[in-house]
C-alpha cells in the first residue's frame, strides 16, 4: 500500500509545541517573523527555522508585502490532519451510534420477554 509521506510530515510538523503556537498566532493574521519571534519569546533565527518546517509541509505561506515578508496560515495544509480526525474517529463514532440503537433493540426484546 502506497504511503503518503506528506501526511506524516504535517503531523510531524505540528508535533512541536512552538510550531503549533506559531500556527495559532498566524490563525489571527499574517505576521512578519520579528513579531512572531517576540510573541514566542524565541530568537529570530530559531523562529525562522520553525517557519521553514511549516512551509515545507504546506501549513504556512510567505508573501512579500512591500519591504516586509508576511507569513500566513495555509488552511489546505491542515487537510491531512482533518482527514485523520474525520476518518477513523467518524467511522467509530457512527458505529457507536448504531450500537446505541442496537442496545435499545436488545432492551425492548428483554422487556417483551418479561425477563
Amino acid at each position, binding site marked *: 500500500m502506497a504511503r503518503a509521506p506528506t501526511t506524516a510530515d504535517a503531523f510531524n510538523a505540528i508535533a512541536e509545541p512552538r510550531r503549533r503556537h506559531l500556527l495559532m498566532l498566524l490563525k489571527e493574521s*499574517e505576521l512578519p517573523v520579528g513579531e512572531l519571534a517576540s510573541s514566542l519569546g524565541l530568537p529570530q533565527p530559531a523562529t525562522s527555522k520553525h517557519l521553514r518546517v511549516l512551509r515545507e509541509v504546506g501549513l504556512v505561506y510567505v508573501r512579500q508585502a512591500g519591504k516586509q515578508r508576511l507569513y500566513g496560515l495555509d*488552511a489546505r495544509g491542515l487537510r491531512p490532519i482533518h482527514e485523520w480526525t474525520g*476518518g477513523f474517529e*467518524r467511522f467509530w463514532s457512527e458505529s457507536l451510534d448504531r*450500537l*446505541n440503537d*442496537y442496545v435499545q433493540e*436488545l432492551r425492548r426484546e428483554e422487556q417483551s420477554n418479561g425477563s
Partner: protein
Amino acid sequence: MEADLNSESTSEREIVVTRSIEGPQRLVFAAYTDSSHLSNWWGPEGFTTTTHSFEFRPGGVWDFTMHGPDGTDYPNWIEWLEISPPERIVLRHGSHSEDPEAFTSTVTITERGGVSEITLRSVFNTRSQRDMVVEKYHAIEGAEQTLGRLANHVSALLRPTTESGD
C-alpha cells in the same frame, strides 16, 4: 510500568473515541459477544458485514468482510486478546491474520444510573502506522464530501480577508 517499544509517546500513537449508550453495561457488552449481534451495528451507516468464522474467547478470531455502500469489500480480522465481562475487551484488529498494520484496541464499558459509557482506545505501533491505518479508514469511509466541507469551513475561518489573486 510498561516499557514502550519506541520513543513516541502513547498519546501520539493512539485514537480514543467515547460514546454514551442508553442502556445497561451488560447489554453493551452483549452486543460484542456474537457475530449476530455485531452484524447489527459494526461499521458506519450503510455498511454490512459477512462473518466467515467467529469464536468469542481469548485467542479466538472474528474473520469477516465489510461491504461498503459502494459495493467495495474490505477483509477484516479480529483476534480477541482479553475478555472480561461486562466491562473490558481487548482485541487485535487487522485485515488478515499476519497483518503488520494490525493495531490493539481496548473497549471499556462503564455504567452509571442505567446509562453506559463505552470507550475505544486504539494504540498503534508507531505514529506513522497510525497515520497509515487512518488513511485506510478514510478510504473505507469515502468521507470526501465531509472533508471537503470541513476544509472549506476551515479555509473560511482561517482566511477571512485574503482574496488576493496571486
